[in-house]
């Protein structure tokens, strides 16, 4: 009994969160959604969208967009019409928009409804006072420090990660798929040496943040935030295996803008705990001019942005062990040949004899271990990438 009780209790409190769904009412909600900020000093991109019922496939959402005419207006006379790009996104040339004006977005939909954001001054760009990586207990932690300069107290950052990585092995022979099973064991019929154009050892990959990072210095004596965690990358993550680059774009926000984004984040991610606020929709700052009863979602800010870049060498990378990476087949029998879409013979140091590699004295590896593209990257090396890998 002494041992039993704790076990029972653990069972009792373990996994107290379960997948669950409630059948929502089948009603059509097609409120307008306006996302994006007016970015002064660079092109602005604004995306229009609709609200869809929960569970709507993303394919459906990506097909149906509101159409209309969008204009960014400045109270000093600046005006710029948006150019439709794709998927509801409009681009505006606000590169030369003067920062001392107040701006708003004016939307005229094809169904004659008009929406607008309020007139707002430009939130100046904060200064990135620090962007650094430091090992922590759980991985490599990336931190950002920001300085609001003269009058900025609320901050937002988005980031793009780019990383170079390589495949696990460089192949010396490539299996030729599709050949009939040999009657004899002549290896030359079933493999070949790779072509130089088939160098798939180094790859590059990139992705952008989904959630904006938010910070506020309101209530502090100084409008700075120091060492806010952006993310933590596990030490065994391939992103830091060769060279990693973090590009952070930061902007300033009004207090209302930050509260809106924070609320949006919270009701999408931080609900359900014992003390979580009851979720509710927070009104944005897009209003319908033609019919005040119409609801529009979104909070549009006017900002200047700045970027900062950080390279991380593979100092902290710890190679993980993939038990399926190497396969030792005595011979490429018929089953073995068709096990993978393409099979490579690697130049593994493990060699069973000093002779030239044959099917029987080298290990085989699946394609994903020798072709870096199989792990999501491409051979498209950014122009600005600092090393000479190909």
């Amino acid at each position, binding site marked *: 009994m002494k041992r039993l*009780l704790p076990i029972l209790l653990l069972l009792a409190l373990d996994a*107290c*969160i*379960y*997948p669950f769904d409630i059948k929502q009412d089948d009603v059509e909600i097609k409120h307008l959604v306006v996302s994006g900020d007016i970015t002064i000093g660079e092109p602005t991109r604004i995306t229009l969208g609709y609200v869809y019922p929960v569970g709507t496939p993303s394919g459906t959402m990506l097909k149906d967009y509101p159409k209309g005419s969008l204009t960014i207006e400045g109270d000093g006379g600046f005006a710029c019409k948006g150019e439709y790009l794709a998927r509801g996104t409009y681009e505006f040339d606000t590169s030369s928009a003067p920062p001392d004006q107040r701006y708003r977005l004016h939307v005229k939909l094809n169904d004659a409804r008009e929406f607008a954001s309020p007139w707002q001054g430009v939130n100046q760009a904060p200064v990135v006072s620090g962007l650094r990586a430091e090992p922590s207990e759980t991985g490599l932690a990336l931190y950002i420090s920001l300085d609001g300069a003269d009058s900025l107290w609320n901050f937002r950052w988005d980031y793009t990660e780019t990383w170079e990585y390589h495949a696990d092995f460089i192949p010396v022979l490539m299996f030729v798929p599709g050949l009939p099973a040999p009657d004899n064991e002549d290896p030359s019929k079933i493999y070949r040496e790779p072509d130089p154009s088939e160098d798939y050892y180094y790859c590059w990959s990139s992705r952008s943040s989904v959630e904006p990072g938010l910070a506020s210095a309101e209530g502090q004596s100084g409008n700075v935030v120091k060492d*806010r965690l952006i993310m933590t990358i596990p030490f065994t993550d391939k992103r830091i295996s060769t060279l990693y680059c973090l590009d952070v774009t930061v902007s300033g926000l009004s207090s209302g803008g930050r509260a809106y984004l924070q609320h949006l984040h919270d009701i999408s991610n931080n609900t*359900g705990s014992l003390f*979580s606020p009851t979720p509710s929709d927070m009104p944005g700052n897009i209003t319908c001019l033609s019919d005040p009863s119409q609801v529009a979602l979104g909070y549009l800010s006017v900002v200047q942005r700045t970027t900062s870049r950080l390279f991380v060498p593979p100092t902290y990378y710890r190679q993980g062990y993939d038990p399926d990476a190497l396969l030792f087949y005595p011979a490429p029998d018929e089953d073995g040949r068709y096990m993978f879409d393409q099979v490579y013979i690697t130049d593994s140091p493990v060699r069973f004899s000093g002779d030239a590699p044959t099917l029987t004295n080298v290990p085989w590896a699946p394609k994903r271990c020798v072709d870096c593209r199989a792990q999501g990257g491409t051979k498209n090396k950014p122009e600005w990438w600092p090393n000479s890998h190909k």
Partner: protein
Amino acid sequence: MRKLVVCLLLLAGLQCYAQTPLFRGREMREYNFPFNGHYYWSTREFVPGSVFFNGTLYENVPLNVNAHTQDLLARESSFAAPVVAERGLTAWFKIDGIYYYNLQYYGVEGAPEGFFQLLTDGRRNVWMQRRKLFARSPGDHNGDKGIGYDDPDYREKLITYFYQQDKYYVERDGAFKRIRPGRSRRAAMRPGQPLSTAEPDVAVPRTIRRSPQVKNAAGSLPAEWFSAGDPSAERRAMLAAIEQENLIASYRNKTYEIGSGDAATATVSGVVRDVASGEALQGVLVADRSGRTYCYTDADGRYSLTLPAGENLLTFREYSMEDMDIHVLLRGSGGLDIVMREKVTALQSAYVTANSMAAHRNAGMGLEKMNSTTITHMPSAFGEGDVLKAVLTLPGVKSVGEASSGFNVRGGSSDQNLILFNGGTIYNPSHLFGIFSAFNTDVVDDIQLYKSSIPVQFGGRISSVLDISTRDGNAERIRGSLGLGILTSHVALEGPIVKDRTTFVLGGRTTYSDWLLKRLPAVSGYSGGKASFSDVNLGVTHHFDERNTLKATAYWSRDGFSFRGDTTFRYSNLDVALRWTHKTARGGTLNVSTGYDRYSNTLDRGYSTDPAGSYALNTTVNQGFLRAGVQQRLGAHTLSWGGDAVLYVLNPGSMRPTGESLVIPRSLDTESALEPAIYAGDTWQPEGSPLSLEAGLRYSSFLTFRPAKYYGGPELRLSGKYSPLPNLSFKTGVNSMNQYIHLISNSSSISPMDTWKLSGAGILPQRGWQAAAGAYWTVFGNVLDISLEGYYKRMYNYLDYKSGAVLTMNEHLADDVVRTRGRSYGVELMLRKLSGRLTGWVAYTWSRAQLQEMQDRGLETINGGAWYNAPHDKPHDVKLVGNYKFTHRYSISFNLDYSTGRPVTIPVGQYLYGNALRLMYSERNAYRIPDYFRLDLAFNIEPGHYLKAFTHMSATIGCYNVTGRRNAYSVFYTTSAGRDVRGYMVSVFATQIPYLSLNLKF
């Protein structure tokens, strides 16, 4: 004479003085169970005899002997009740020609108390004393001379019986010595003739020591025939037990004559105490024969009842005490103090919230009572008896979830309940984020929940009053208890400080839950967390005299917890109070109390990676109070009037930097206000009338300082009862309340992040009223109570939050909250079985609770200004609470709870915003989580009633959520990695939770 003053002083022994012309003695004690051989030999009959008392010889007096206490009983023909002759004045008596001498009266050295018969064989003289000793044990004693009785409620017979013991004494070496039992004694002690059958000379006994025969006889006996004869501890315990039996029994089946004169009515007043501990008993119903004239004892056990002169029957009822019926002959006003004994079986079966017929005795509605025994035996998570969880088993009481703080009464919010602990206000009644309540059942005496007819002396909240009081300490001796559970342990100690004057009770609890949290897997969400709590109660009661009592209480509790991360929550309650109770010369009661309450919560937000943003946030509620009230009975009226004042000083938020933080120290302006109130009420209960009324008016005010602002208004309390039959009543009532302090929260239940706010600019007082009606029927020989109550309730200015509201450190908090009006209505049906092996109740409630924003804020108006469900709106609610008693030691308790799922707000839409998928939520509380169902079972083992045992161990083995149902506490949706919408359900107790708790009393 014809004037009997019954004065029962407990602990010092029964002191019933009957002023008869014959005796100065006590009221005779009588046992209330059938046994043979208690009185002189084996009969209860009084037989004529003679007695030499106080220097006078009385002849032909009906006499008997209490062979246990060695008292001479006498009955004067003109007085029905026998009395105990004061032994110090009794020299001897004679029954059936045999003389019995009080040797102590004659100064015989070493002689025990009592009466002795002289035996002689003509050569040797021996004094024999015949006693009846008390014993009580389980087992079959029917063969033991046929004495004892079998309690039919017990499967295992519990035998209370007397056995006879004869003791023999001789004078040896100049001292009176007991002869050891043995064959030699039996051989030597053949009863012979008494020394004399003639009328004894008073001086004769004094010559005993000089009697050569006695001296010779003693000298001729072997030395081993003598023993010290000192009463053993066992015997002392038995004497104590029998003393209690005597005290109780002494009241029964006798008529007490009270007062003198020819008044048409007279007032009987006195104090009711527990016979075992001497504690005053609060809440005892004292009623006349008809049950229509009644009162309840106050906190000091005092009662006062005005009745028509003449014969009457007074009934004393309290759910955990044995019933007491006293015949009185009222000639004028006088006193009658009573002691009651706890029901032995109440340890398991007192699941009854009020005694039978209680609902028919007053016009008040919606009162639920419960005692600590009831609470302790209810199955609960982790085996810890829990006041709030017990309250939740009552009809009309709900909560938003099983691990939530607070409760909701008849559609009210959790901050609309006034929770009083010894008069002090408790602002957060929970430990461990709602798993345990903040009250230690070891020291809790009674809890009373007023759901509808709230007494006029209470105010400040618009939904209900939960009045919790702690016990007085044991007045007899130091006692204690110790309880061990899986997560918590508790201890209590009580006893006298000054004999018959001052008692204390001290209790404490703590937890050691960290061990469990550390072992939880990461997926639970609580792994690596820390949680702790503790609380301490202290109560000291001092009785200055019969009319003045002072009680000082203190309560302190502390909670702290953190779950993975840098954030630590802490909160604490502190309450100290002093109450003086004075019984006025006219039979009224004056209560004056004062105290200080403090509730403080602190959030330590440390950013290990961002020391610049670390801070500690604190909010505090301080209040001092002074209350004075009088209750006075005047004929058919019971008047109560008084006033109270509460001074609030709130710190709505202060933030200070911690460590290297750059956070600016900042404090919101302190809020302070005074809430005075005056009230008066009357309960009109005419004798013999089926009608009764209760009416009261309270005027509450609220004056804020800086800026000065005044609010106030009357509060009405009105209820009436019509009882066409003694067991059938119909009631109706209406009451209104004002509330000037508000809980600002955006979560469903009370959380440590919530802020209390006083009414002031932009925040108006909450006002509410409730109308209710009900029918109450007691059937099957007062065994089953059936009640049906309906109510309709309105509330105004209840604060709900705006979307995205910032509730902490907000200087303009009023801008982030909205005023709502509320409505709730429902019907509560309850069947309650009060006695027998199976006790308990089943209750069904159908109710609704809805809110509506009072302002029009356009698109931002909650649900477009339509009514929406309150978070605790659960229309269907079924509760079954019961206890089945196998024997007096073994019982099983069960608890079943079903309710409609509570309302929630869930996402109904999704959209892309930036790169992420976002959620759009439904109208507030438009959906519901799945229905709630839970069954708990517990097996209770009580200690045996062995009088010799120093400690008594009880144990409860139980299982919470026997069916292992995954009840949803909440549901939530997330956008996983910003791309997929996924729904989840949080279940706090998702499977069976077995538990074992041990309790030791000493």
